[in-house]
């Protein structure tokens, strides 16, 4: 589906700080969630995913938290680096569907050296 919005939300952080990017998803039946990173002029790149039977999953420098009660997903990036500057998208999908995720509107992360 299409994300709607005229301007992307922006998060500005200093290099070395921790970043938290939030996403509110729409369908309470969704049970699979993905975070993508899109650098300028490139295609989205898979970062991390989580299924609804979990509330936390950790990767390298990234952690995804899932709160099904309030339909909220967050991506935490530890010790943010300039190379983390990008647009971050969350996506949701549900069992019994066609495995086509619904993408959120995206958040632009700007890391200042």
């Amino acid at each position: 589906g299409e994300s709607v919005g005229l301007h992307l939300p922006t998060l500005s952080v200093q290099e070395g700080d921790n970043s938290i990017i939030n996403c509110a998803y729409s369908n309470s039946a969704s049970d699979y969630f993905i975070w993508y990173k899109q650098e300028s002029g490139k295609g989205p790149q898979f970062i991390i995913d989580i299924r609804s039977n979990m509330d936390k999953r950790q990767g390298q420098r990234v952690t995804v938290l899932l709160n099904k009660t309030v339909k909220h997903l967050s991506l935490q990036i530890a010790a943010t680096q300039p190379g983390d500057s990008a647009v971050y998208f969350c996506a949701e999908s549900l069992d019994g569907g066609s495995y086509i995720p619904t993408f959120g509107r995206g958040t632009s992360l700007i890391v200042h050296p």
Partner: protein
Amino acid sequence: SQTIHQWPATLVQPVGSPLSLECTVEGTSNPNLYWYRQAAGRGLQLLFYSVGIGQISSEVSQNLSASRPQDRQFILSSKKLLLSDSGFYLCAWNLGASRLQETQYFGPGTRLLVL
């Protein structure tokens, strides 16, 4: 490992001209294939998807069409481009045979400017 290619990377076309964008996937068989469009500063709009050769599902009514002549080839076309067709076109694939294979992987994209 699997890789996905798109070409051209950039294209500038006059209004009313035809369009053909190509996407190919390597290293897998029978993938699901997807075409998305992304306007500047916006999210992803699903245009078409295909679960097999010759099988195309359209998500939006528009000036574009898609075809899948081979298992790992997906083509986005138009007979006459409109100014509103400008954007960043992304191809993606997944296996989609089960819940464990639904993550989509994206190509590098084609930036289309219609003048």
